[in-house]
């Protein structure tokens, strides 16, 4: 209980390095930055493992209180963002997919349409755009909420009540965001492909909707579905972990919250790009 957060705090104790006097040379400065990056990676990884352990061990504990909280987080990181995602899907379809389809048709390359759409929309743009939007909308709110709770001593209050802060505050956010990003990506992809088809139809591209969707369906294989699920859940998991880590796993004062939020969003973007790179390698290998 107390140990979970204490371990994370121990690993997140980077303040002394950040506030140390300025180094005398550029090499010292670069060395310190590298050291800070390594310590942050260690802290985030440890926090991720601790959270995974808590999810596995305590998923059913206090279910009367916790399961509604998980549903609430799924709603926050998923359902409530649906209108915004429908708008983004429509825009993506008209601005990118419609134009791509028209350009391919102009050069007589419509036979590449399916594989192009799968690579661009299903594998890359859909998951990455969803992750970035969820990071901006929900991840930032996570850091601010948790950072404020930390600064106001609410975390100590939870511990005083015998409530594990990782279980109560982090587990619902991690599960909610992992499932939210997965579901929103599916909706974004379907919406973007459909609006792209509509755009192509309106632009008089010589391609029937049935041919358009048949080509996309033929270009998709089971691995795309499996890796899409894995990738989007990994995005959601790590966005939640990075933002919660920065909000919760270090002692904060109220004035630190905004600075920490900026750092968390930056690291969230980097984490998503790194995960994306790993999946590109996986796609190339399979």
């Amino acid at each position, binding site marked *: 209980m107390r140990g979970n957060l204490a371990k994370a705090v121990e690993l997140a104790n980077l303040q002394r390095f950040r506030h140390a006097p300025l180094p005398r040379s550029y090499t010292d400065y670069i060395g310190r930055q590298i050291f800070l990056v390594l310590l942050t990676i260690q802290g985030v990884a440890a926090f991720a493992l601790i959270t995974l352990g808590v999810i596995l061990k305590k998923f059913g504990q*206090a279910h009367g*209180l916790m399961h509604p909280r998980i549903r609430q987080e799924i709603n926050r990181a998923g359902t409530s963002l649906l209108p915004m995602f429908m708008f983004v899907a429509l825009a993506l379809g008209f601005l990118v997919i419609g134009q791509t389809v028209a350009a391919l048709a102009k050069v007589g390359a419509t036979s590449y349409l399916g594989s192009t759409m799968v690579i661009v929309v299903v594998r890359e743009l859909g998951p990455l755009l969803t992750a970035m939007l969820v990071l901006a909308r929900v991840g930032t709110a996570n850091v601010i909420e948790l950072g404020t709770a930390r600064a106001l*001593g*609410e975390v*100590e*209050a939870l511990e*005083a*009540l015998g409530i594990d802060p990782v279980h109560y505050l982090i587990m619902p956010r991690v599960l909610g965001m992992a499932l939210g990003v997965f579901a929103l990506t599916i909706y974004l992809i379907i919406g973007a492909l459909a609006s792209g088809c509509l755009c192509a139809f309106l632009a008089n591209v010589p391609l029937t909707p049935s041919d358009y969707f048949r080509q996309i369906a033929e270009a998709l294989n089971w691995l795309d579905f499996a890796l899409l699920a894995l990738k989007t859940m990994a995005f959601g998991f790590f966005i939640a972990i990075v933002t919660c880590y920065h909000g919760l796993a270090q002692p904060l004062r109220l004035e630190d919250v905004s600075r920490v939020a900026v750092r968390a969003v930056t690291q969230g973007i980097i984490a998503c790009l790194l995960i994306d790179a790993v999946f590109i390698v996986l796609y190339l290998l399979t």
Partner: protein
Amino acid sequence: MSEPSISPVVLEMRGVRVTALRDPSLVVLEDVNWTVQAGEFWVVAGVQHAGKSDLLLHAAGLLTPTEGNCRLFGCDTREFDETQIRERLRVGFTFADGKLFNQFTLAENVALPLRYHRHHTEAETARAVAGLLELLELTPHANLTPGNVAAVWRQRAALARALALQPELLLLDNPNGGLTARHRRWLVDFLDQLWRGHEFFGGRPITLVATTDDLYPWQQPHRKFAALHDGTFSEIGTWGGAEFNRHQAVSELLTGAEGA
């Protein structure tokens, strides 16, 4: 009413070094040796920043001593984890500023420990919460969030939340801080009822430890006093005793209070 009989040790500190919550490298008290037995009512006095809150956080097992041993109900707080959750829940704790959850109403704050630790139905939880709110005269404020009520009601809601799980040992960090004379009197009387055994809790006495920087409200002979001064912890007996009257911290606090 007769005093509760002295029984087993509930809190024991041996050679404890107390460090600050916000800066673990800062030592606020050295070599704390203290034993609290079941049925006792302790008041720990000290000026502001003497280390009262940090001492209480160590006593509650919320901070681990870097040196020495702290035992709660026989369990070393260094090893407090999931397996000792039963022992952990025998201790109630209220912070100096209440530390309520700002997004919840007062009723939801009080309900939180019950909903987390007890497998009650919603109706049973609601009944228990309503009883506690009534006991602490919080019913009219039940559906307000902490930001919309005065500090005194926040303080009482924090006390109600700490009492929700019916602890055997209640640690209160400066419970009188910022209260008016009327509310101070009410609180001290209420704590006395808890210590003697309130009928709401089935007449079971609760062991109490409160910190304070104002000794006047606590001047009754049944309480034991300790003082924090110059980074040391000393037991100073009961109100008006020779050791009590001699202690530097006591004279500072009483003089300060008179001056105020």
